[in-house]
């Protein structure tokens, strides 16, 4: 923001909202990383930590809620300010959802503690987790720097996450068909993958918000989407068809 507001405390409030959102983002980043790490390393302690830390994310979200409401009521922001306040509200709610998914992954990690892993699924999930975490990191960078280029890039990134999700979906289906004993594990892994994919979607949402903050318009709705799991069916030959 090149120009300062005439009312200094208004500037301070806007900065505070932004900072709190960033703090929340940082927390959520850690949550993603830790939940995936806990899963892959069967680290119950770390999984427990993720579940506990989610409380902090929730508290931050409600604080951001209060602050944005206060700003809306007292300052009646317009134009860029209005967009940034509204976006902070939306971003915080997206981040909160991401945090919830991380927590969900940790819960499943605890269930899966004693089950032996199959195939390459866990590695794929780890890769997916890293990608999502990077997306969140990038989107937060885009948010602080009001960087339209990075934000738009993230919109493309989501495609990749979707592809991995598709692949994983197919893979896990195969495992389940091979051995019904794998079903518990695979179902949980499927949901974990789903959670990660949803996280990616939320990160994309945030990127859209950043785009809106900067330009004042919503990005066009023809961004690439590759999540095709909703159309997949299991065929006799174990092949999925689009």
């Amino acid at each position, binding site marked *: 923001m090149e*120009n*300062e507001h*005439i*009312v200094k405390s208004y500037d301070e409030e806007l900065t505070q909202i932004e900072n709190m959102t960033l703090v929340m983002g940082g927390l959520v980043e850690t949550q993603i990383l830790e939940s995936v790490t806990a899963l892959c390393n069967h680290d119950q302690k770390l999984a427990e930590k993720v579940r506990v830390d989610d409380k902090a994310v929730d508290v931050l979200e409600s604080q951001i809620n209060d602050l944005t409401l206060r700003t809306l009521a007292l300052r009646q922001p*317009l*134009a860029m300010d*209005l967009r940034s306040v509204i976006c902070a509200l939306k971003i915080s709610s997206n981040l909160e959802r991401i945090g919830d998914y991380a927590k969900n992954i940790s819960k499943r990690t605890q269930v899966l503690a004693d089950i032996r892993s199959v195939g390459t699924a866990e590695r794929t999930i780890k890769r997916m987790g890293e990608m999502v975490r990077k997306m969140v990191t990038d989107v937060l960078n885009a948010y602080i720097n009001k960087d339209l280029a990075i934000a738009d890039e993230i919109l493309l990134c989501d495609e990749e996450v979707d592809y991995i999700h598709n692949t994983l979906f197919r893979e896990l289906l195969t495992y389940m068909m091979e051995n019904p004993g794998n079903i518990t594990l695979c179902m949980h892994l499927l949901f974990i993958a789903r959670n990660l994919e949803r996280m990616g979607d939320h990160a994309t949402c945030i990127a859209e918000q950043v785009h809106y903050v900067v*330009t*004042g318009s919503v990005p066009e709705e023809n961004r690439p989407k590759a999540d095709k799991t909703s159309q997949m069916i299991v065929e006799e030959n174990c092949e999925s068809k689009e």
Partner: protein
Amino acid sequence: MIENNDFAPENTIISSKNVDVFYGDKQALFDINLNVAENSVTALIGPSGCGKSTLLRCFNRMNDVIPICRVDGSITLGGQDIHAPNVDVVSLRQKVGMVFQKPNPFPKSIYDNIAYGPRIHGMTASKAELDEIVEESLKRAGLWNEVMDRLDKPGTGLSGGQQQRLCIARAIAVKPKVILMDEPCSALDPIATATVEELIDELRERFTIIIVTHSMQQAARVSMHTAFFHLGNLVEHGATSDIFTAPKDERTQNYITGRIG
């Protein structure tokens, strides 16, 4: 988005082309091209001294009174040039009424306040007709129920908001096409402001309203189109929702967000 953004609305009623206004040697407005859509509310916003009131006063030639004021360029009302030599200023002002910043009812009875306009324009033939106009104008201004039993009491005895609505009733009594409002709520408390805004909302079905206001929120609430003026220039004109969420010009942005521009 209420309307497209190129702002030559098809149903233009008032249109200014290359309007420059000078007070003596000082130029107050620079090359203003503004089209105002019929039966809509257009808000003119901008910092003090940006020329928005000056432009408003050009629309009914109230600036004629100021000897040093000179208006160049053309302003048309329904396609007719209002500065044409055969234009009668009195008829122009009947068609383009005005409501001022401070409620300024005449120090006469409520009835006479409303009846004055129709009387001087010879709009009525009988007392009954005049009564009808008074009643209708007061009703339309949402004031009838409050003053119906004290029409003979002085208009100056009403509260601020009532006085302003009385002034609006007085303006609509002469059946204008356009009503110019120069900061109509700046002297009113929030409740009275709300009643006047509600009134503006209702009036826009029958009249074209151009309102100058310092309250961004008010402009956002009541108007469909907003024009932003800065240092005598028309910076941006567009649908109100666009101007207030995503203005195109940085000066507009700075002004409406309260930044030091």
